Protein backbone atom coordinates (compact mmCIF):
# COMPACT_ATOMS: atom_id res chain seq x y z
CA UNK A 1 0.00 0.00 0.00
CA UNK A 2 1.39 3.32 -0.98
CA UNK A 3 1.92 6.05 1.51
CA UNK A 4 -1.06 7.97 0.21
CA UNK A 5 -3.57 5.23 0.91
CA UNK A 6 -2.03 4.20 4.18
CA UNK A 7 -2.00 7.71 5.52
CA UNK A 8 -5.58 8.23 4.51
CA UNK A 9 -6.84 5.03 6.07
CA UNK A 10 -8.90 5.43 9.19
CA UNK A 11 -8.36 5.98 12.06
CA UNK A 12 -4.99 7.71 11.57
CA UNK A 13 -5.72 9.20 8.16
CA UNK A 14 -7.52 12.31 7.07
CA UNK A 15 -8.22 14.39 4.01
CA UNK A 16 -5.25 15.45 1.91
CA UNK A 17 -5.04 19.22 1.43
CA UNK A 18 -2.56 20.29 -1.26
CA UNK A 19 -0.30 23.26 -0.52
CA UNK A 20 2.01 23.38 -3.52
CA UNK A 21 2.31 21.59 -6.85
CA UNK A 22 5.72 19.99 -7.18
CA UNK A 23 5.42 18.29 -10.57
CA UNK A 24 2.79 18.67 -13.27
CA UNK A 25 1.63 16.01 -15.71
CA UNK A 26 4.39 16.87 -18.22
CA UNK A 27 7.06 16.66 -15.52
CA UNK A 28 5.76 13.20 -14.58
CA UNK A 29 5.80 12.07 -18.21
CA UNK A 30 9.39 13.34 -18.67
CA UNK A 31 10.56 11.71 -15.43
CA UNK A 32 8.89 8.44 -16.46
CA UNK A 33 10.68 8.47 -19.84
CA UNK A 34 14.02 9.25 -18.15
CA UNK A 35 13.59 6.43 -15.64
CA UNK A 36 12.71 4.07 -18.52
CA UNK A 37 15.99 5.02 -20.25
CA UNK A 38 17.88 4.48 -17.00
CA UNK A 39 16.33 1.02 -16.53
CA UNK A 40 17.42 -0.01 -20.04
CA UNK A 41 20.89 1.45 -19.51
CA UNK A 42 21.45 -0.16 -16.08
CA UNK A 43 20.35 -3.59 -17.32
CA UNK A 44 21.97 -3.35 -20.79
CA UNK A 45 18.58 -3.85 -22.41
CA UNK A 46 15.37 -5.39 -21.22
CA UNK A 47 16.19 -9.10 -21.23
CA UNK A 48 14.72 -10.69 -18.13
CA UNK A 49 13.45 -7.33 -16.81
CA UNK A 50 9.94 -7.29 -15.32
CA UNK A 51 7.97 -4.58 -13.54
CA UNK A 52 5.86 -5.03 -10.41
CA UNK A 53 3.77 -2.06 -9.26
CA UNK A 54 2.84 -1.81 -5.59
CA UNK A 55 -0.87 -1.44 -4.87
CA UNK A 56 -2.32 0.96 -5.28
CA UNK A 57 -0.19 4.04 -6.05
CA UNK A 58 2.61 2.19 -7.82
CA UNK A 59 0.39 0.33 -10.29
CA UNK A 60 -0.42 3.17 -12.72
CA UNK A 61 3.21 4.29 -12.58
CA UNK A 62 4.40 0.76 -13.42
CA UNK A 63 2.03 0.73 -16.40
CA UNK A 64 3.35 4.10 -17.56
CA UNK A 65 6.93 2.83 -17.24
CA UNK A 66 6.06 -0.30 -19.23
CA UNK A 67 4.59 1.87 -21.99
CA UNK A 68 7.67 4.10 -22.01
CA UNK A 69 9.96 1.05 -22.15
CA UNK A 70 8.00 -0.37 -25.08
CA UNK A 71 8.28 2.94 -26.99
CA UNK A 72 12.03 3.27 -26.46
CA UNK A 73 12.95 -0.35 -26.96
CA UNK A 74 10.34 -1.03 -29.61
CA UNK A 75 12.51 -1.27 -32.76
CA UNK A 76 15.51 -3.35 -31.75
CA UNK A 77 13.98 -6.05 -29.47
CA UNK A 78 11.00 -6.83 -31.74
CA UNK A 79 8.78 -4.93 -29.28
CA UNK A 80 8.84 -7.59 -26.58
CA UNK A 81 6.55 -6.40 -23.86
CA UNK A 82 7.95 -6.17 -20.37
CA UNK A 83 6.01 -8.46 -17.98
CA UNK A 84 3.87 -6.33 -15.68
CA UNK A 85 2.59 -7.40 -12.26
CA UNK A 86 0.73 -5.92 -9.31
CA UNK A 87 1.51 -6.60 -5.67
CA UNK A 88 -0.39 -5.78 -2.49
CA UNK A 89 1.91 -6.08 0.52
CA UNK A 90 -0.70 -5.85 3.32
CA UNK A 91 -0.09 -9.40 4.62
CA UNK A 92 3.66 -8.76 4.80
CA UNK A 93 3.66 -5.43 6.66
CA UNK A 94 5.52 -5.15 9.96
CA UNK A 95 2.76 -3.10 11.59
CA UNK A 96 0.05 -5.79 11.49
CA UNK A 97 -1.68 -5.64 14.85
CA UNK A 98 -0.46 -2.08 15.45
CA UNK A 99 -2.58 -0.28 12.90
CA UNK A 100 -5.57 -1.51 10.89
CA UNK A 101 -4.29 -3.53 7.98
CA UNK A 102 -6.43 -4.71 5.10
CA UNK A 103 -5.42 -5.48 1.53
CA UNK A 104 -6.44 -2.68 -0.82
CA UNK A 105 -6.42 -4.37 -4.18
CA UNK A 106 -5.54 -7.61 -5.88
CA UNK A 107 -2.12 -9.16 -6.21
CA UNK A 108 -1.43 -10.46 -9.69
CA UNK A 109 2.01 -11.65 -10.71
CA UNK A 110 1.24 -13.68 -13.86
CA UNK A 111 4.83 -14.70 -14.63
CA UNK A 112 7.78 -16.45 -13.00
CA UNK A 113 10.22 -14.14 -11.26
CA UNK A 114 12.98 -16.75 -10.83
CA UNK A 115 16.27 -15.38 -12.22
CA UNK A 116 14.52 -12.24 -13.49
CA UNK A 117 15.41 -8.63 -12.73
CA UNK A 118 12.38 -7.37 -10.84
CA UNK A 119 11.86 -3.60 -10.81
CA UNK A 120 9.53 -2.70 -7.95
CA UNK A 121 7.57 0.48 -8.71
CA UNK A 122 5.90 2.76 -6.16
CA UNK A 123 4.71 6.35 -6.13
CA UNK A 124 6.34 7.67 -2.93
CA UNK A 125 9.35 6.32 -1.03
CA UNK A 126 9.23 7.38 2.63
CA UNK A 127 10.16 5.11 5.57
CA UNK A 128 10.99 2.14 3.31
CA UNK A 129 8.72 -0.19 5.25
CA UNK A 130 6.39 -0.85 2.31
CA UNK A 131 9.43 -1.83 0.23
CA UNK A 132 10.67 -4.15 2.99
CA UNK A 133 7.23 -5.81 2.97
CA UNK A 134 7.37 -6.05 -0.83
CA UNK A 135 10.82 -7.70 -0.71
CA UNK A 136 9.39 -10.20 1.77
CA UNK A 137 6.35 -10.84 -0.44
CA UNK A 138 8.57 -11.43 -3.50
CA UNK A 139 10.24 -14.38 -1.78
CA UNK A 140 6.95 -16.27 -1.84
CA UNK A 141 6.90 -15.96 -5.65
CA UNK A 142 10.46 -17.07 -6.30
CA UNK A 143 14.09 -15.98 -6.27
CA UNK A 144 14.81 -13.10 -8.62
CA UNK A 145 18.30 -12.51 -9.99
CA UNK A 146 18.07 -8.93 -8.71
CA UNK A 147 15.49 -6.52 -7.33
CA UNK A 148 15.58 -2.82 -8.21
CA UNK A 149 13.39 0.04 -7.06
CA UNK A 150 11.80 2.84 -9.06
CA UNK A 151 9.79 5.63 -7.35
CA UNK A 152 8.29 8.86 -8.59
CA UNK A 153 9.08 10.76 -5.39
CA UNK A 154 11.74 10.09 -2.74
CA UNK A 155 10.72 12.18 0.25
CA UNK A 156 13.44 11.00 2.65
CA UNK A 157 13.05 9.91 6.29
CA UNK A 158 14.13 6.32 5.70
CA UNK A 159 13.81 3.98 8.70
CA UNK A 160 15.42 0.98 6.99
CA UNK A 161 18.55 0.50 4.85
CA UNK A 162 16.67 0.79 1.56
CA UNK A 163 17.52 3.09 -1.37
CA UNK A 164 15.88 3.62 -4.76
CA UNK A 165 17.64 2.86 -8.07
CA UNK A 166 15.46 5.15 -10.19
CA UNK A 167 13.93 8.36 -8.84
CA UNK A 168 11.53 10.78 -10.52
CA UNK A 169 12.20 13.55 -8.04
CA UNK A 170 13.98 13.95 -4.74
CA UNK A 171 11.66 15.99 -2.55
CA UNK A 172 12.83 17.04 0.93
CA UNK A 173 9.83 16.99 3.28
CA UNK A 174 8.91 17.27 6.93
CA UNK A 175 7.37 14.33 8.77
CA UNK A 176 4.07 16.14 9.17
CA UNK A 177 3.76 16.80 5.46
CA UNK A 178 2.22 14.45 2.95
CA UNK A 179 2.90 13.79 -0.74
CA UNK A 180 0.12 12.99 -3.16
CA UNK A 181 0.93 11.46 -6.56
CA UNK A 182 -1.70 11.18 -9.29
CA UNK A 183 -1.55 11.11 -13.09
CA UNK A 184 -2.16 14.89 -13.03
CA UNK A 185 0.85 15.71 -10.92
CA UNK A 186 2.60 15.62 -7.57
CA UNK A 187 1.35 17.78 -4.70
CA UNK A 188 2.91 18.55 -1.37
CA UNK A 189 0.48 19.26 1.45
CA UNK A 190 -0.94 18.09 4.73
CA UNK A 191 -3.47 15.63 6.00
CA UNK A 192 -6.19 17.43 7.88
Amino acid at each position, binding site marked *: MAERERRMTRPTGGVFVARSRVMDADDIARATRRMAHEIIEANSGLDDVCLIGLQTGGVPLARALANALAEIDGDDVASTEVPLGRL*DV*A*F*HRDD*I*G*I*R*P*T*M*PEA*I*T*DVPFHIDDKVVVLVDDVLYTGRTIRAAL*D*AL*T*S*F*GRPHAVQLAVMVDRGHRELPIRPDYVGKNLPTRHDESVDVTADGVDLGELR
Partner: protein
Amino acid sequence: MSDLLSISDLERADVEQLLDLTDHFVEVSARPIPKVPALRGKTVVSLFYEDSTRTRLSFETAAKRLSADTMNFSVSTSSVKKGESLRDTALTIEAMGIDCIVVRHKSAGVPWQLTRWVDAAVVNAGDGWHEHPTQALLDCYTLRQKRGSLDGMHIAIVGDVKHSRVARSDIAAFTKLGAEVTVVAPPTLLPPAIETYPVKVSHDLDAVLPSVDAVYLLRMQRERMTEALLPSLREYTSTYGLTVARAELLRDDATVMHPGPMNRGVEIDGDIADFDRSVIVDQVRNGVSVRMAVLFLLLGSGSDLHNAIPASESEERSA
Protein backbone atom coordinates in the same frame (compact mmCIF):
# COMPACT_ATOMS: atom_id res chain seq x y z
CA MET B 1 -11.19 -8.67 19.92
CA SER B 2 -14.19 -10.36 18.44
CA ASP B 3 -15.53 -13.75 17.47
CA LEU B 4 -17.27 -15.59 14.64
CA LEU B 5 -20.15 -17.44 16.26
CA SER B 6 -22.94 -17.56 13.72
CA ILE B 7 -24.07 -16.26 10.35
CA SER B 8 -27.21 -14.81 11.94
CA ASP B 9 -24.98 -12.37 13.87
CA LEU B 10 -23.59 -10.91 10.65
CA GLU B 11 -24.91 -8.22 8.38
CA ARG B 12 -24.87 -8.71 4.64
CA ALA B 13 -21.96 -6.26 4.45
CA ASP B 14 -19.93 -8.34 6.92
CA VAL B 15 -20.44 -11.47 4.85
CA GLU B 16 -19.46 -9.60 1.69
CA GLN B 17 -16.37 -8.17 3.36
CA LEU B 18 -15.27 -11.69 4.32
CA LEU B 19 -15.89 -12.96 0.79
CA ASP B 20 -13.93 -10.03 -0.69
CA LEU B 21 -11.07 -10.69 1.70
CA THR B 22 -11.15 -14.35 0.68
CA ASP B 23 -10.19 -13.33 -2.88
CA HIS B 24 -6.83 -12.18 -1.53
CA PHE B 25 -6.21 -15.46 0.23
CA VAL B 26 -7.18 -17.46 -2.85
CA GLU B 27 -4.38 -15.55 -4.57
CA VAL B 28 -1.98 -16.28 -1.69
CA SER B 29 -2.90 -19.99 -1.87
CA ALA B 30 -2.00 -20.01 -5.57
CA ARG B 31 1.54 -18.69 -4.99
CA PRO B 32 4.53 -21.01 -5.36
CA ILE B 33 5.02 -20.61 -1.61
CA PRO B 34 1.48 -20.17 -0.26
CA LYS B 35 2.38 -18.57 3.03
CA VAL B 36 2.30 -15.02 4.41
CA PRO B 37 3.66 -13.77 7.74
CA ALA B 38 0.44 -11.96 8.70
CA LEU B 39 -0.26 -13.83 11.95
CA ARG B 40 3.29 -14.51 13.09
CA GLY B 41 3.37 -14.98 16.85
CA LYS B 42 -0.35 -15.76 17.14
CA THR B 43 -1.51 -19.13 18.39
CA VAL B 44 -4.67 -20.86 17.21
CA VAL B 45 -6.06 -23.85 19.09
CA SER B 46 -8.48 -26.38 17.66
CA LEU B 47 -10.79 -27.61 20.37
CA PHE B 48 -12.75 -30.39 18.73
CA TYR B 49 -15.20 -32.36 20.84
CA GLU B 50 -16.55 -34.05 17.71
CA ASP B 51 -14.87 -35.95 14.90
CA SER B 52 -13.84 -33.96 11.88
CA THR B 53 -11.41 -34.33 9.03
CA ARG B 54 -11.88 -31.50 6.62
CA THR B 55 -12.87 -28.68 8.95
CA ARG B 56 -10.05 -29.38 11.33
CA LEU B 57 -7.41 -29.79 8.63
CA SER B 58 -8.78 -26.78 6.81
CA PHE B 59 -8.50 -24.50 9.85
CA GLU B 60 -5.07 -25.86 10.62
CA THR B 61 -3.85 -25.28 7.07
CA ALA B 62 -5.36 -21.79 7.09
CA ALA B 63 -3.60 -20.88 10.34
CA LYS B 64 -0.29 -22.26 9.08
CA ARG B 65 -0.50 -20.37 5.78
CA LEU B 66 -0.88 -17.23 7.88
CA SER B 67 2.24 -18.23 9.90
CA ALA B 68 0.26 -18.69 13.12
CA ASP B 69 1.22 -21.48 15.49
CA THR B 70 -1.36 -24.20 15.88
CA MET B 71 -2.22 -26.46 18.77
CA ASN B 72 -4.47 -29.44 18.51
CA PHE B 73 -6.77 -30.79 21.08
CA SER B 74 -8.49 -34.07 20.64
CA VAL B 75 -10.95 -35.22 23.24
CA SER B 76 -10.03 -38.88 23.07
CA THR B 77 -6.44 -38.25 24.20
CA SER B 78 -7.04 -35.41 26.66
CA SER B 79 -7.95 -34.81 30.28
CA VAL B 80 -11.59 -34.58 29.24
CA LYS B 81 -11.44 -38.36 29.52
CA LYS B 82 -10.58 -37.83 33.20
CA GLY B 83 -13.68 -35.71 33.67
CA GLU B 84 -12.35 -32.18 33.17
CA SER B 85 -15.13 -29.68 32.51
CA LEU B 86 -15.35 -27.56 29.36
CA ARG B 87 -14.68 -24.43 31.39
CA ASP B 88 -11.56 -25.83 33.05
CA THR B 89 -10.28 -27.12 29.73
CA ALA B 90 -10.82 -23.69 28.13
CA LEU B 91 -9.16 -21.81 30.97
CA THR B 92 -6.22 -24.21 30.97
CA ILE B 93 -5.68 -23.72 27.27
CA GLU B 94 -6.02 -19.97 27.58
CA ALA B 95 -3.44 -19.88 30.37
CA MET B 96 -0.91 -21.10 27.81
CA GLY B 97 -1.32 -17.80 25.96
CA ILE B 98 -3.45 -18.33 22.92
CA ASP B 99 -5.19 -15.89 20.61
CA CYS B 100 -7.95 -17.94 19.06
CA ILE B 101 -10.02 -21.02 19.86
CA VAL B 102 -11.64 -22.90 17.02
CA VAL B 103 -14.32 -24.98 18.67
CA ARG B 104 -16.59 -27.81 17.60
CA HIS B 105 -18.99 -29.34 20.08
CA LYS B 106 -22.06 -31.54 20.00
CA SER B 107 -24.06 -29.00 22.02
CA ALA B 108 -25.48 -25.82 20.52
CA GLY B 109 -24.28 -22.64 22.21
CA VAL B 110 -20.88 -23.87 23.40
CA PRO B 111 -18.99 -21.18 21.41
CA TRP B 112 -21.07 -18.45 23.11
CA GLN B 113 -20.41 -19.96 26.48
CA LEU B 114 -16.67 -19.98 25.74
CA THR B 115 -16.68 -16.27 24.91
CA ARG B 116 -17.85 -15.57 28.46
CA TRP B 117 -14.91 -17.45 29.92
CA VAL B 118 -11.96 -16.56 27.70
CA ASP B 119 -10.55 -13.42 26.09
CA ALA B 120 -9.26 -15.26 23.03
CA ALA B 121 -11.25 -14.95 19.81
CA VAL B 122 -13.69 -17.82 19.42
CA VAL B 123 -14.56 -19.30 16.04
CA ASN B 124 -17.50 -21.65 15.80
CA ALA B 125 -16.54 -24.73 13.76
CA GLY B 126 -19.90 -26.36 14.34
CA ASP B 127 -22.09 -26.47 17.45
CA GLY B 128 -24.60 -29.28 17.57
CA TRP B 129 -27.52 -28.80 15.18
CA HIS B 130 -27.14 -25.05 15.38
CA GLU B 131 -24.57 -23.37 13.11
CA HIS B 132 -21.42 -23.93 11.08
CA PRO B 133 -20.63 -20.41 9.86
CA THR B 134 -17.36 -21.02 8.01
CA GLN B 135 -19.01 -23.79 5.97
CA ALA B 136 -21.71 -21.34 4.90
CA LEU B 137 -19.09 -18.72 4.02
CA LEU B 138 -17.15 -21.15 1.84
CA ASP B 139 -20.38 -22.26 0.18
CA CYS B 140 -21.25 -18.63 -0.59
CA TYR B 141 -17.74 -18.03 -1.88
CA THR B 142 -17.87 -21.11 -4.12
CA LEU B 143 -21.23 -20.07 -5.56
CA ARG B 144 -20.02 -16.51 -6.07
CA GLN B 145 -16.90 -17.80 -7.82
CA LYS B 146 -19.06 -19.95 -10.09
CA ARG B 147 -21.92 -17.52 -10.76
CA GLY B 148 -20.67 -14.04 -9.91
CA SER B 149 -23.39 -13.25 -7.39
CA LEU B 150 -26.01 -15.00 -5.28
CA ASP B 151 -28.58 -12.29 -5.92
CA GLY B 152 -31.67 -13.87 -7.44
CA MET B 153 -30.30 -17.41 -7.42
CA HIS B 154 -32.60 -20.28 -6.56
CA ILE B 155 -30.92 -22.86 -4.33
CA ALA B 156 -32.42 -26.14 -3.17
CA ILE B 157 -31.14 -27.57 0.12
CA VAL B 158 -31.99 -31.25 0.18
CA GLY B 159 -32.02 -33.77 2.98
CA ASP B 160 -31.69 -33.89 6.70
CA VAL B 161 -32.34 -30.24 7.50
CA LYS B 162 -33.46 -31.05 11.03
CA HIS B 163 -30.07 -32.24 12.27
CA SER B 164 -27.99 -30.03 10.02
CA ARG B 165 -26.04 -27.03 11.29
CA VAL B 166 -24.78 -26.60 7.73
CA ALA B 167 -28.36 -26.12 6.55
CA ARG B 168 -29.10 -23.51 9.21
CA SER B 169 -25.98 -21.49 8.44
CA ASP B 170 -26.45 -21.87 4.69
CA ILE B 171 -30.09 -20.75 4.81
CA ALA B 172 -29.05 -17.66 6.76
CA ALA B 173 -26.12 -16.88 4.47
CA PHE B 174 -27.76 -17.62 1.11
CA THR B 175 -30.86 -15.56 1.88
CA LYS B 176 -28.75 -12.74 3.32
CA LEU B 177 -26.94 -12.51 -0.02
CA GLY B 178 -30.20 -12.36 -1.95
CA ALA B 179 -30.78 -15.98 -2.98
CA GLU B 180 -34.08 -17.80 -2.76
CA VAL B 181 -33.89 -21.09 -0.87
CA THR B 182 -36.17 -24.11 -1.08
CA VAL B 183 -35.64 -26.90 1.41
CA VAL B 184 -36.58 -30.34 0.19
CA ALA B 185 -36.95 -33.10 2.74
CA PRO B 186 -39.34 -35.66 4.16
CA PRO B 187 -41.51 -34.09 6.91
CA THR B 188 -39.68 -36.07 9.59
CA LEU B 189 -36.35 -34.45 8.66
CA LEU B 190 -37.56 -30.85 8.85
CA PRO B 191 -37.03 -28.77 11.99
CA PRO B 192 -40.18 -28.16 14.07
CA ALA B 193 -40.47 -24.43 13.30
CA ILE B 194 -39.59 -24.57 9.61
CA GLU B 195 -42.30 -21.98 8.82
CA THR B 196 -40.24 -19.37 10.69
CA TYR B 197 -37.27 -19.88 8.31
CA PRO B 198 -37.05 -17.59 5.25
CA VAL B 199 -37.46 -20.56 2.91
CA LYS B 200 -39.97 -22.43 0.79
CA VAL B 201 -40.61 -26.04 1.71
CA SER B 202 -41.14 -28.91 -0.69
CA HIS B 203 -41.36 -32.67 -0.39
CA ASP B 204 -40.97 -33.29 -4.10
CA LEU B 205 -37.37 -33.10 -5.34
CA ASP B 206 -38.29 -33.89 -8.95
CA ALA B 207 -40.56 -30.84 -9.08
CA VAL B 208 -37.93 -28.51 -7.66
CA LEU B 209 -34.82 -29.57 -9.58
CA PRO B 210 -35.66 -28.08 -13.01
CA SER B 211 -35.85 -24.53 -11.61
CA VAL B 212 -32.75 -24.43 -9.40
CA ASP B 213 -29.39 -22.79 -10.06
CA ALA B 214 -27.75 -24.94 -7.41
CA VAL B 215 -28.70 -28.04 -5.47
CA TYR B 216 -27.11 -28.53 -2.07
CA LEU B 217 -27.20 -32.09 -0.78
CA LEU B 218 -26.91 -32.55 2.96
CA ARG B 219 -25.22 -35.54 4.46
CA MET B 220 -27.50 -38.14 6.04
CA GLN B 221 -26.23 -37.89 9.59
CA ARG B 222 -26.55 -41.43 10.74
CA GLU B 223 -24.83 -40.61 14.04
CA ARG B 224 -27.58 -38.13 14.93
CA MET B 225 -30.44 -40.40 13.85
CA THR B 226 -31.52 -41.59 17.24
CA GLU B 227 -35.19 -41.77 16.35
CA ALA B 228 -36.79 -43.81 13.61
CA LEU B 229 -37.27 -40.95 11.16
CA LEU B 230 -36.95 -42.89 7.94
CA PRO B 231 -38.21 -46.31 6.89
CA SER B 232 -34.84 -47.05 5.28
CA LEU B 233 -31.92 -45.31 3.65
CA ARG B 234 -32.76 -47.01 0.38
CA GLU B 235 -36.20 -45.47 0.40
CA TYR B 236 -34.65 -42.09 1.17
CA THR B 237 -32.33 -42.45 -1.81
CA SER B 238 -35.18 -43.34 -4.14
CA THR B 239 -37.16 -40.20 -3.23
CA TYR B 240 -34.54 -37.62 -2.16
CA GLY B 241 -31.17 -38.88 -3.40
CA LEU B 242 -29.55 -37.20 -6.40
CA THR B 243 -29.35 -40.21 -8.67
CA VAL B 244 -28.01 -40.14 -12.21
CA ALA B 245 -31.56 -40.32 -13.57
CA ARG B 246 -32.73 -37.47 -11.37
CA ALA B 247 -29.75 -35.30 -12.30
CA GLU B 248 -31.16 -35.25 -15.85
CA LEU B 249 -33.82 -32.86 -14.52
CA LEU B 250 -31.18 -30.27 -13.64
CA ARG B 251 -30.46 -27.39 -15.98
CA ASP B 252 -27.14 -27.67 -17.82
CA ASP B 253 -25.66 -24.79 -15.84
CA ALA B 254 -26.87 -25.94 -12.43
CA THR B 255 -24.29 -26.51 -9.71
CA VAL B 256 -24.17 -29.53 -7.38
CA MET B 257 -22.82 -29.01 -3.86
CA HIS B 258 -22.20 -31.17 -0.81
CA PRO B 259 -20.50 -30.25 2.47
CA GLY B 260 -18.82 -33.65 2.85
CA PRO B 261 -18.20 -36.25 3.98
CA MET B 262 -20.31 -37.85 1.27
CA ASN B 263 -22.37 -41.00 1.68
CA ARG B 264 -21.97 -42.09 -1.92
CA GLY B 265 -25.06 -43.96 -3.02
CA VAL B 266 -27.26 -42.45 -0.30
CA GLU B 267 -27.86 -38.71 -0.76
CA ILE B 268 -25.66 -38.48 -3.85
CA ASP B 269 -24.82 -40.99 -6.54
CA GLY B 270 -21.12 -41.71 -6.78
CA ASP B 271 -21.05 -40.72 -10.45
CA ILE B 272 -22.66 -37.33 -9.79
CA ALA B 273 -20.12 -36.44 -7.13
CA ASP B 274 -17.41 -36.55 -9.77
CA PHE B 275 -19.21 -34.94 -12.70
CA ASP B 276 -18.37 -31.56 -14.13
CA ARG B 277 -21.23 -29.59 -12.58
CA SER B 278 -20.22 -30.66 -9.09
CA VAL B 279 -18.11 -28.12 -7.18
CA ILE B 280 -17.50 -30.34 -4.15
CA VAL B 281 -13.73 -30.19 -4.58
CA ASP B 282 -13.85 -26.40 -5.05
CA GLN B 283 -15.75 -26.16 -1.76
CA VAL B 284 -12.92 -27.88 0.07
CA ARG B 285 -10.25 -25.81 -1.68
CA ASN B 286 -12.05 -22.54 -0.97
CA GLY B 287 -12.57 -23.60 2.63
CA VAL B 288 -8.91 -22.98 3.43
CA SER B 289 -8.96 -19.48 1.93
CA VAL B 290 -12.24 -18.55 3.63
CA ARG B 291 -10.85 -19.64 6.99
CA MET B 292 -7.68 -17.64 6.34
CA ALA B 293 -9.91 -14.61 5.82
CA VAL B 294 -11.78 -15.28 9.07
CA LEU B 295 -8.60 -15.76 11.10
CA PHE B 296 -6.94 -12.71 9.55
CA LEU B 297 -9.98 -10.53 10.15
CA LEU B 298 -10.23 -11.59 13.80
CA LEU B 299 -6.53 -11.66 14.67
CA GLY B 300 -4.59 -9.55 12.21
CA SER B 301 -6.57 -6.84 10.50
CA GLY B 302 -7.05 -4.58 13.49
CA SER B 303 -10.64 -4.15 12.35
CA ASP B 304 -13.14 -6.71 13.52
CA LEU B 305 -16.68 -7.94 13.31
CA HIS B 306 -17.53 -5.93 16.37
CA ASN B 307 -20.40 -4.06 14.76
CA ALA B 308 -22.04 -7.35 13.99
CA ILE B 309 -22.28 -8.39 17.61
CA PRO B 310 -25.53 -7.35 19.24
CA ALA B 311 -24.95 -4.57 21.78
CA SER B 312 -26.58 -6.59 24.55
CA GLU B 313 -24.05 -9.34 24.12
CA SER B 314 -20.95 -7.14 24.08
CA GLU B 315 -22.18 -5.43 27.24
CA GLU B 316 -22.57 -8.77 28.94
CA ARG B 317 -19.08 -9.69 27.97
CA SER B 318 -17.44 -6.56 29.24
CA ALA B 319 -19.40 -6.75 32.46
